[in-house]
């Protein structure tokens, strides 16, 4: 019988009831008395000099309260970048300013240079259209290679070029060169990791409020990490101390990374609300979201693999250009470096691995973390490369992988990380069974008989989650700690509120987190509520991204609950006139070991708050504990993915027939939620591989800025997915043994799709080495024509 309680139970989500009845409270559902509305005026050119902004006509229009431009933000800090990358020559990365509203120049289509605050949204929109800006258009830097060429237009005039940093990591050049020189075979691949837009279904919203009575600002915002926003905006941008600033992220309609970052609009509404002494609300349109939400991916890479005569991997070398866009978004600099380079060993025993990354400023929207963030880019390169090597060598691609798998743990890679545990053979075995690899050739023949080309693509992946050990990331340039925190407040009658730093925006924390506490205390989940998303209620935690919530914040919750148990045993021991060392807690009952003397959970919690018969000389009244948890290592989820496709050779159209994912997430708290996370991740990965692409033209115009131009995966584009997480190697260093599951699907799936299509095409003498994503019918058809 499957469990229906505690860790491992597929409990139905309690938050669903409000979402299914229209009772969710998203940021745009919040309105504050006296609220005004804000509309941003955004650049419609990629690069331009702001000659003048004439707002006089707009200022006189009905309902207009004030028009702001960059001048109003002189003396206010710019939006900060949270991670300092050091160039291979020892210099710090270039860190140009990022003003709240553009000053002097606009640097991408969508860069805001003015903002209107008016009584109604309609009035604000009308006035925004009446603002006359003289912007002298400049040549833009759009393509990364062109942006690095000498004489390229400068995105930032105070820099000498568009290079943000030139980073090198891993094995030294001499060793890597020697490995390539000695190789029996070298496989080389050049590829593009296409620029994507995260597109959570809820557009961003920011509502700033100000209480003059106590000089306190409140920001309601669509954020994955309200405390991070409070810290960045308060300390670095607006200069508001923490105790005068509250950030609330209520129900948030999906994040996928793009709601991690501190955005100009958040700082603007908070600033304007203080200036006007009125609440100011901004709601992004979808078109605005495309040109102001941080984008993802956008790497151009050359990767090489050296193999010896027995097909053992001896060296990997990569050379990547990574687009930063026009400004450094909050975590942008860390994505192509520490979240990408450190995963470049993949699942393989390769003695030498060197990663080279040049980060480039261009006149495009800033690029930052999007689901997987650096790890999908690493996995895609490596797993495409291994497939190509297998084809060149005429060996089975799965056998080549298996031959080179890391099989003993812990394993220190040449790129700084130490995998604590894993079993890549087991997930690959499981995958081959799930996808019926043995039966594939028969299916291929059946498709061929119908005039179709059938292909099977297989790959594995490794990722680093549970971000991150603070002392380690501090050495690597992070400007923040990456612990998390939880407060377990046991109330007098035994119910519990758990205040957590993690934020749930689809992950189901309100259901899964109580399962952990309930398991530890032996009480029912219905007695436990999770509180998240309000800095005035929750301890200082770093929020939700990088598949970290359960591994880091969940561990804090476990530690806090352990403290509760220890104190509760002392209280119970006093009540039972026994030593607390002899007290056992089981099924919500405290018992003196070996006796039938016991008190119930509720008796102990009541005693804590009504301490009439209580060891006041030894312990304080009350039952509330906080723990901060800083992980000692990353966690390393891993797995193997397979995709089976059929290609129509007449049209190049690809149909996905089957998709299987075998993941090792360590221990799992709520299997239903975990499987849902994998489904969603796969859909985004398949979207990247088949449909999605953010496209700029040579003038820096954003061509894919609506759902009519940017192809989001729809129900018809996807099959049912086979997912499995029965291969379990628990994380060795966190108390729950969990690894994280939020990003795996998006990391593991793109190479499976592309490998499958290439497997389908490379028959009958046709040779296609690679097709860049997305695999549109046109691209596939063109590749087949040679």
């Amino acid at each position: 019988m499957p469990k229906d309680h505690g860790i491992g139970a597929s409990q139905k989500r309690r938050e669903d009831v409000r979402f299914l009845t229209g009772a969710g409270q998203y940021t745009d559902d919040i309105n504050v008395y006296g609220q005004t509305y804000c509309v941003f005026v955004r650049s419609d050119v990629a690069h331009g000099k702001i000659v003048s902004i004439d707002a006089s006509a707009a200022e006189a229009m009905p309902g207009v309260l004030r028009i702001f431009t960059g001048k109003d933000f002189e003396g206010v800090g710019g939006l900060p970048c949270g991670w300092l990358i050091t160039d291979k020559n020892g210099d710090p990365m270039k860190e140009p300013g990022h003003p709240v509203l553009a000053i002097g120049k606009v640097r991408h289509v969508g860069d805001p240079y003015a903002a209107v605050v008016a009584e109604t949204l309609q009035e604000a929109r009308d006035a925004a259209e009446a603002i006359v800006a003289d912007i002298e258009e400049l040549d833009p830097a759009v393509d990364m290679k062109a942006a690095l060429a000498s004489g390229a237009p400068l995105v930032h005039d105070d820099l000498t070029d568009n290079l943000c940093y030139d980073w090198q990591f891993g094995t030294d050049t001499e060793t890597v060169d020697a490995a390539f020189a000695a190789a029996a075979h070298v496989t080389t691949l050049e590829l593009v990791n296409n620029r994507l837009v995260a597109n959570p279904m809820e557009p961003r919203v920011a509502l700033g409020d100000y209480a003059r009575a106590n000089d306190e600002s409140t920001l309601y915002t669509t954020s994955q990490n309200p405390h991070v926003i409070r810290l960045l905006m308060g300390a670095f941008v607006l200069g508001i101390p923490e105790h005068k600033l509250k950030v609330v992220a209520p129900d948030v309609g999906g994040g996928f990374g793009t709601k991690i970052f501190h955005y100009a609009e958040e700082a603007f509404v908070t600033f304007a609300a203080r200036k006007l002494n009125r609440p100011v609300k901004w709601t992004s349109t979808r078109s605005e979201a495309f040109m102001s939400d941080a984008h993802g991916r956008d790497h151009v890479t050359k990767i090489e693999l050296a193999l010896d005569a027995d097909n053992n991997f001896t060296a990997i070398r990569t050379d990547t250009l990574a687009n930063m866009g026009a400004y450094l978004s909050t975590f942008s600099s860390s994505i192509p470096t520490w979240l990408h380079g450190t995963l470049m060993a993949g699942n393989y025993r390769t003695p030498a691995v060197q990663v080279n990354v040049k980060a480039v400023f261009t006149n495009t929207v800033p690029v930052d973390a999007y689901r997987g963030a650096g790890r999908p880019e690493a996995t895609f390169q490596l797993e495409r490369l291994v497939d190509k090597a297998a084809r060149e060598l005429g060996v089975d691609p799965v056998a080549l992988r298996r031959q080179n798998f890391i099989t003993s743990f812990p394993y220190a890679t040449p790129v700084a990380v130490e995998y604590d545990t894993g079993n890549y053979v087991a997930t690959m075995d499981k995958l081959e069974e799930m996808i019926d690899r043995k039966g594939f050739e028969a299916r291929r023949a059946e498709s061929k008989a119908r005039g179709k080309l059938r292909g099977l693509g297989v790959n594995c992946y490794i990722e680093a989650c549970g971000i991150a050990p603070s002392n380690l990331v501090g050495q690597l340039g992070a400007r923040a700690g990456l612990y998390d925190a939880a407060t377990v407040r046991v109330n007098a009658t035994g119910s519990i509120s758990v205040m957590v730093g993690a934020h749930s925006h689809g992950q189901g924390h309100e259901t899964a987190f109580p399962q952990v506490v309930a398991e530890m205390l032996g009480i029912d989940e219905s007695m436990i509520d999770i509180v998240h998303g309000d800095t005035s209620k929750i301890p200082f935690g770093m929020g939700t991204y990088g598949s970290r919530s359960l591994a880091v914040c969940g561990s804090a919750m476990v530690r806090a609950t352990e403290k509760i148990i220890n104190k509760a045993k002392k209280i119970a021991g006093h009540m039972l006139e026994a030593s607390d060392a002899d007290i056992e807690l089981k099924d919500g009952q405290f018992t003196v070991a070996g006796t039938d003397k016991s008190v119930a959970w509720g008796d102990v919690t009541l005693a804590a708050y009504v301490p009439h018969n209580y060891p006041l000389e030894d312990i304080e009244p009350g039952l509330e504990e906080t723990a901060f948890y800083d992980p000692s290592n990353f966690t390393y989820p891993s797995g193997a993915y397979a995709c089976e496709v059929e290609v129509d050779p007449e049209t190049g159209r690809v149909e996905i027939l089957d998709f299987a994912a075998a993941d090792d997430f360590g221990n799992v708290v709520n299997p239903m939620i975990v499987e849902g996370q994998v489904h969603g991740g796969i859909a985004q990965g398949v979207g990247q591989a088949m449909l999605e692409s953010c496209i700029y033209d040579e003038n820096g115009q954003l061509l894919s800025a609506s759902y009519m131009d940017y192809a989001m995966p729809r129900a018809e584009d996807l099959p049912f997915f086979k997912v499995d997480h029965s291969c379990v190697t628990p994380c060795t260093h966190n108390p729950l043994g969990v690894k994280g599951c939020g990003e795996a699907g998006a990391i593991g799936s793109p190479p499976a799709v592309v490998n499958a299509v290439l497997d389908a095409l490379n028959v009958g003498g046709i040779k296609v080495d690679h097709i860049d994503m997305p695999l549109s019918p046109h691209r596939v058809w063109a590749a087949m024509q040679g």
Partner: protein
Amino acid sequence: MTKVTMTVNGKAVSKEVAGNTLMTEFLRDELRLTGTHVGCDTSQCGACVIHVNGQSVKACTMFAAEATGAEVTTIEGMANADGSLSVLQQAFQDHHGLQCGFCTPGMVMTAAKLLEENPKPTEHEVRDYLEGNICRCTGYHNIVKAIMAASGQDVSSIAAE
């Protein structure tokens, strides 16, 4: 200003609004029915689907004035009379057919209409009917499963849960 009168979730409502007030704005701002969501500006995402005189409609593409005299149902009107979840809503919860919840009202409204027209849809028919509704969280797997389950079909053999 235009006087707009209609029945929403069985209740008669009447408001004076600007003529260009969209149905989404009328529901969200005037009636405080914030379950109808706005996820795009090109009528693509379907987060705003409601029923108007029995037809499913994207509320972002109609003026409130166009609904004068109409019977309108929103997500807030889909539960059973006693407040419990309807069969379709319950199936979404049972099969984890939602994550962040933002597309969910539109999905439920569209699915309800599908099941009215086609009480036992195939997987392909469900996927085809959801053409105008985008979900970014679930990969549609559990949405399709929930809708088929709500129609009384046995979904236990569909891939993994």
